[in-house]
């Protein structure tokens, strides 16, 4: 039989604009990744070397963005700081996904009492604000980036578990899962083959949007002095360092602030773009 399909799934015009947004996001993303990876090898100055004679210097050929209150090169610190800020963020999001997704898959698929128990626990943890928790953990274990990560992961994984669980719960009662059961597929195979593909795109979207949030959290906690410790270059910590000089040398806060702003924006754009794209496809 010669079969031709009706072409309904054309992308409507207003979509092209949103593609532009994703493209911007992706270009940003590539720039950011490249900077993070090769940046530390090409920076003009050592980010940790203080040069008190050159403190608060204006931009020059030696210091592209000038120096901070300790005479360190701001540009170099920003670039090297990207590594700790973004690296930690990526690590946090990946850990969170690795913990959250499997738990969500299993709990959603099995359901029943396990599900009820989990949901109560999750509600309990979610009731703790992540900032307070981070402060508490920093209080117990001392302020450091590792402890900061632990506190973020502790709260964040539940969001992933919840998303995955709710998708699995709606999908597991659908006919195709029943059909797979009738066809002799084991539960493990159904989870792997039929459930997992359903959650990939929503989780990717969630993760992309989350990266922005995590950057902000890390930066704000570092700003509060609970994360990266001086003299390590980290954007939030840099903001904190610049605070006393806000009136005389505002650029100390403006540069790291802008860096955070653009990175968060890039990831959000990409996340939103991906969400729109995948939402349409799943229809």
């Amino acid at each position: 039989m010669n079969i031709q399909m009706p072409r309904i799934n054309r992308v409507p015009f207003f979509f092209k604009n949103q593609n532009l947004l994703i493209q911007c996001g992706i270009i940003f993303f590539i720039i950011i990744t490249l900077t993070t990876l090769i940046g530390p090898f090409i920076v003009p100055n050592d980010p940790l070397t203080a040069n008190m004679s050159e403190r608060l210097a204006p931009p020059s050929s030696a210091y592209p963005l000038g120096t901070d209150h300790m005479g360190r090169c701001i540009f170099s610190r920003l670039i090297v700081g990207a590594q700790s800020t973004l690296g930690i963020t990526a690590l946090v999001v990946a850990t969170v996904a690795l913990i959250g997704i499997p738990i969500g898959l299993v709990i959603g698929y099995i359901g029943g009492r396990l599900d009820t128990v989990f949901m109560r626990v999750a509600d309990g943890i979610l009731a703790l604000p992540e900032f307070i928790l981070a402060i508490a953990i920093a209080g117990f274990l001392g302020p450091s980036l590792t402890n900061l990560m632990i506190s973020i992961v502790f709260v964040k994984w539940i969001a992933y578990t919840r998303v995955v669980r709710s998708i699995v719960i709606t999908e597991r009662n659908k006919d195709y899962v029943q059909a797979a059961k009738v066809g002799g597929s084991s539960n493990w195979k159904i989870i792997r083959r039929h459930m997992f593909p359903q959650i990939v795109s929503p989780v990717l979207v969630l993760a992309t949007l989350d990266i922005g949030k995590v950057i902000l959290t890390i930066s704000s906690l570092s700003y509060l002095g609970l994360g990266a410790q001086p003299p390590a270059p980290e954007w939030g910590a840099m903001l904190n360092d610049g605070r006393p000089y806000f009136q005389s040398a505002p650029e100390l806060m403006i540069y790291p602030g802008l860096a955070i702003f653009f990175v968060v924006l890039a990831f959000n754009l990409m996340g939103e773009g991906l969400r729109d794209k995948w939402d349409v496809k799943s229809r």
Partner: protein
Amino acid sequence: MIENKTTATSENNLLVVENLSVTVRNSREKLIRNLHFSIPQGEIFGLVGESGSGKSLTATVILGMLSKSLEVTSGSVKLGQSEITSLSERELRNIRGKEIAYLSQNYQSFFTPFIKVGKQFIEIIRCHTDMSRKEARKVAIHWLNKVHLPAERVFNSFSDELSGGQLQRAAIASAIMFRPKLIIADEPTTALDVLTGERILDLLSELKEELNCSILLISHDLKHIINRTRTVGVMYGGRIVEIGKTSAVLANPIHPYTDLLLQSRLRLNKHIQHELPTMLGEPGLIAEEGCPFSKRCPSVRESCSNKVPMSSLGTHHSAACHLVKAEREERYVTR
């Protein structure tokens, strides 16, 4: 041509659709092409076609609920005096529900499961009028009785406590409360079994008499609507390929699509069949040029790839097919 005749002659047409075309915005993809039909006051008009024929889309245009990604590129839809395609959203909202009622196939999800049916009725009524709760309750009970439901019981039920037929009836009741001039029923019986379905259609015809409204009955199955409508239009690929008095179309289906649609309907037989007559191909197989059905048609000719105009066969019957001419000649000869 007949469609011009019907629109021109009868002054009491409630709904007139003229030369309507709908395309996907910013593309040349046409979903509805040059649609022509009219529904006289107090009549039931049937629209038949398979999925992708554009029948439900036609309903959305009439309701003024066309999705933003589609646009009306030509033609007009007149309900009484008002031109639907040029009304503002606010005016449309006024017309919807009050002058045009819509019954969807999805009556199952018509009512929210968490709120009692009666309460939802009261809300709908108070949305459109300034009645008190008590008055609204009376009105709701009145209309629930009208659709032959145990009004008090249904009023105090949640939607999942009602059967499919009951839900469909309740949905009808809420649709007709404001005495609409036109009821659009999109596949109202498809999800129901024969018994319940026939009773729902009985109810619709009965209500039509009482409210003196018109009904646009949409279905993919000729069988469901054939016995209820006075006129019927058969759609394929966004076009009406045959239109006319139901009895005339039934007696002498000219367009091969109508004919095959009639033949392939499932029916009870005194003798058990070994194979059902079928139509070739898939409903999505639509020819871009000429007759949309030509890719599936058993009596296709070269000329079918050209534009095939509607030509009439008698006063109340016309079809867009070269077979009309042959049919006319045959009649001429036999006379």
